């Protein structure tokens, strides 16, 4: 088990950085032009709100009484599974056009199915995941393509 301390403060810091970036963008794009609001006015307000409130949240975490910042225990195996799910989805995005959405989504389903397993990997389980992925993948594809009439990427193989 690894221990990720103070995830709350990290997210506040992320918002503070984004807010500061938005504020600096706004200052260049014109907050007020001849007394009238320019394109930068709303980004300025949003950035100010984000930066000030996240700074307040950070301040509260460290100086406002929370002497011991709360830690969040995170199982590294779980982080690995989440990373694999996200990687499978990014892989789908990259492969959808060249391979077609049917093949890419079925491959994604198989990978995610194997990632989310609660039992040890064996031939029967892998076979079940592949069968479920192929059957549902085809049904889902047909539903969107023919019932909802969505033009889906067919890829190099031109499957469905």
């Amino acid at each position: 088990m690894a221990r990720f301390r103070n995830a709350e403060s990290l997210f506040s810091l992320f918002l503070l950085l984004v807010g500061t970036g938005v504020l600096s963008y706004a200052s260049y794009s014109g907050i007020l032009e001849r007394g009238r609001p320019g394109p930068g006015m709303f980004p300025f307000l949003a950035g100010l709100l984000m930066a000030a409130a996240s700074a307040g949240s950070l301040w509260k975490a460290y100086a406002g009484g929370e002497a011991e910042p709360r830690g969040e225990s995170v199982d590294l195996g779980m982080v690995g599974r989440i990373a694999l799910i996200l990687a499978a989805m990014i892989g789908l995005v990259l492969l959808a056009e060249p391979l077609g959405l049917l093949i890419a989504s079925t491959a994604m389903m198989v990978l995610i199915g194997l990632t989310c397993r609660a039992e040890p990997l064996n031939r029967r389980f892998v076979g079940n995941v592949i069968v479920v992925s192929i059957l549902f993948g085809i049904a889902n594809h047909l539903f969107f393509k023919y019932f909802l009439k969505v033009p889906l990427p067919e890829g190099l193989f031109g499957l469905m």
Partner: protein
Amino acid sequence: MTDSLGMLMNGILATLLTWQYLLAVVIGSLAGLLIGVLPGLGPAAGVAIMLPVVVTLDPTTALAMLAGIYFGAMYGGAITAILLGIPGDAPSVMTVLDGHPFAKQGEAGRALGLSTYASFIGGLVGLIGLTFSAQILSRYALAFGPSEITALMIFSMSMVSLFASGQPAKGFAVLGFGIWLGLIGLDPITGGPRFTLGTVELLDGLDFAVVAVGLFGLGEMLISMRDAVIKGNPSTYSYRSMMPRLADLYATRKAMGVGSAVGFMIGILPGVGATAATMLAYAAAKKISRTPEKFGNGSLEGIAAPEAANNAASYAAMVTLFTLGIPASATTAVLLAGLVMLGLQPGPLLFQQHTEFVWTLFGTFYVGNLVLVVLTLALVPLLAAAIFIPRAYLYPIVLAIIVYGIYSINFSTFDLLIVVVFGVIGYFMKLTNFPMVPLVLGLILGPILEVNIRRMLIASRGDWTAFLDSSISLTIYLMTLVLLVAPFLLRRLTAARAGAVPQ
């Protein structure tokens, strides 16, 4: 009032006689029941996942289906709470306390039956409350022009950010983030690109559905990976045991009444939510009970009160959504996104401009509440078994639906990348208790607010007092100010009083 009741009756008849509406109610309710029993998928995630699928339908059918998912999830959560002691969603936590012990005593059928009827009664009370409150509030719709709408948006954003979590700073930080996300794309007045990172795909801005699916759908699935795999043996029951027992209904009438009333009153408050409503209803029912000692050990009143409350609260959350455009919960925030995507702006003018749509939609809610009783009782064994579907099969299926649904919106794989990004953001927000409702509200209302404010300032030649030209907007701004300042002043006052008391 009689006109509205007539329109509501027409809406109910239209739902019963139009196959698309009826099918949407049934499919939505079924999907909601399933989502309600599956831990890791809440009503907000369910509505978000289905959002891209239904946007191609006509608004009434689409909203009837989304609302069916929301209300169905409220019914479904109780099934696993009673049979397995595992709440399907957060509002059914209180049902576990008495529902599961009662089931373990061999009375699972009675508990399931009672929870279903209590849900129906709570839902009915919520619906009647929604009908009358909406009717009263919508009378003032014509008094709302651009200046009043702007004031109302600022009020609702402040209110939701203040109450959505225990820490207002987090709420406002997330609101700012949401407003900024809403600004990505072309400037509505000058037409110049803002925050597009030089990409063509971001010129049109971020789609609500894409962000909502990432935050609520993928984000919730990722966070549920932390939970252990569900193992257990469901309690046994028979269909006959689930049939209504007049004695049980009579014995729990006060608990149901209190639960429904508390649920509606709490549910109407933005940011408080159905879970708090069930807790307060449980406490209130225990207080008025003749046998409070039974609570926690299998009390019928302990099942009836929270179940009535969570359903009443889910309909109450619609009051502010439809009349003021303020979502009271995460699910209603996603529904707000759905309404906007379908070309409808919830708020005071909705009842004036889309009268038939509103009353037909309310008609589908009434029919849906009845349909849910039949479906819940008929499908309990199937739904209870669904909880044991391994994630290895369930999650790939849900993600495949997400992928196709998101692709269908703009026929773009770029949107899928956005879903992944917001899935990660949603995961961290859940992990760190940052509220999501202000983000969705900022994303939806931010761009509308910007256009309103800039147009008004251009028209008034930079005169900011144009925003205070009516008594309604002035009152709303004063209310916003009180809302923002009062907690701070109260804290100072309490601290000063505590300091004055000698130790």
